[in-house]
């Protein structure tokens, strides 16, 4: 117990002293996951709108496919991206393996179906009369869809926050495609795994505390969006 308290106090010390290695790991995590979520939000919302507007029977196939993709195992995504980006893979010439860009790609693949799935579900569950009312008032198909998006804005924002929550805590994919290189591709989750493996728990605890804090902030934002959506 004493060991745990001592390690925790030292971890607090690392956080308050703004240790350089610690800060660079946190910033890289935020940069990688933030960029991935921005790209995934654009792709996911567009995908959701595309499926929502689709009239073709293919839609019946796409929705279960999308729902299945929401639970993609990160290690499988990591392996798939690794095979694509490795020297012998189809995108090997881009030399992206073991770079932050590869990590962003992997996290995008993980976050896009989550954002698309939740955004699509909220558009579908919105009152179907919203779309019809907009059309009655002279809206084009595009305007009517924008209206539905506007009406479900808080649920769609929730999907983005859920996507961020998923990728920032993810370790499997970024470890495979990033390689956990110190000062270059080492993010919070991979650093925690490595430090715990080494038996050096102080940095791991410090990073774990920041990860928990971020998770708390993400869930607080999610709660606020859901509450506002319910009130409006």
């Amino acid at each position, binding site marked *: 117990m004493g060991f745990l308290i001592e390690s925790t106090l030292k971890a607090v010390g690392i956080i308050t002293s703004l240790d350089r290695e610690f800060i660079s790991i946190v910033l890289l995590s935020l940069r990688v996951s933030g960029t991935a979520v921005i790209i995934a939000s654009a792709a996911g919302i567009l995908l959701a709108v595309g499926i929502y507007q689709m009239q073709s029977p293919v839609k019946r196939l796409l929705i279960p496919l999308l729902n299945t993709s929401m639970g993609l195992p990160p290690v499988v995504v990591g392996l798939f991206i690794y095979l694509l980006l490795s020297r012998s893979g189809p995108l090997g010439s881009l030399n992206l393996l073991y770079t932050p860009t590869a990590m962003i790609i992997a996290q995008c693949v993980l976050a896009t179906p989550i954002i698309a799935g939740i955004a699509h579900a909220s558009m579908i569950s919105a009152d179907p*009369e919203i779309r019809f009312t907009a059309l*009655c008032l*002279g*809206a084009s198909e595009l305007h009517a869809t924008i209206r539905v998006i506007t009406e479900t804005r808080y649920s769609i924002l929730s999907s983005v926050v859920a996507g961020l929550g998923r990728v920032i805590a993810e370790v499997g994919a970024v470890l495979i495609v990033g390689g956990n290189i110190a000062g270059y591709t080492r993010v919070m989750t991979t650093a925690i795994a490595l430090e715990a493996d080494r038996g050096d728990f102080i940095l791991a605890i410090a990073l774990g505390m920041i990860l928990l804090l971020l998770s708390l902030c993400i869930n607080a934002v999610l709660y606020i969006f859901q509450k506002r959506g319910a009130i409006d």
Partner: protein
Amino acid sequence: MIKEIIAKDIVRTFNSRFSLHCSIHLESGQTHALLGPNGSGKSTLLRTLSLLERPQQGEIIYRDEKESYLNPFSDLALRRRVTLVNTRPVVFRESVLKNVTYGLRIRGIGRKECMERAMEALRSVRLEDHKNQPAPLLSSGEKQRLSLARAIAIDPDVLMLDEPTVNLDPENTGIIEQAIMSLHEKGDRLILFVTHNLFQARKLADKVFFIHNGRIIEQNSKEKFFSSPETELARRFLRGEIY
């Protein structure tokens, strides 16, 4: 200005039990009431005539001073001259004023004109004092009035209303009826409304259509329909024997 709407042999089949199969002729300057028992196809006909749902067969012709438009379901410019107010008012999650300006904003109308027309429409349904209130917080009667204000602000050539005062108290009903009458007084608008309220049909309509099982059984002037209906079904409907 739309002068007339002609629907010829339009057919919409939903299942083996119900199909709409009818023809109808509506003229500008007239308020038309569409009466009929529940499930007779009134709302389906309204949605089809307002160009929001296509019939499986038949044709709909819109005619203005210059030309005729055959089945103009994809003609957005024409569709914007027609507005349908639904039975169940759906309001957007924004202020009352923004709800009213929605139809104007998507038509690219400038902010100043938007505000003027929206305020005029709100005054016509006595909601001007609620303009900054979130629309979802209105009462059901106020929401229905807001629904009508959204349509009035657009100033459509053709206004269709699906049971505009169903489940409303006399005060809200009176305000909505007054607003419809004011629009009728402009003289050149085509108004079609569905109602179960025979007193309302007498009060507002010039012409009455009676629909039963997807067929228009009778069409007559208001006076003739209520004093001496031609068909036994219409007589039974007026006596309250079918509903």
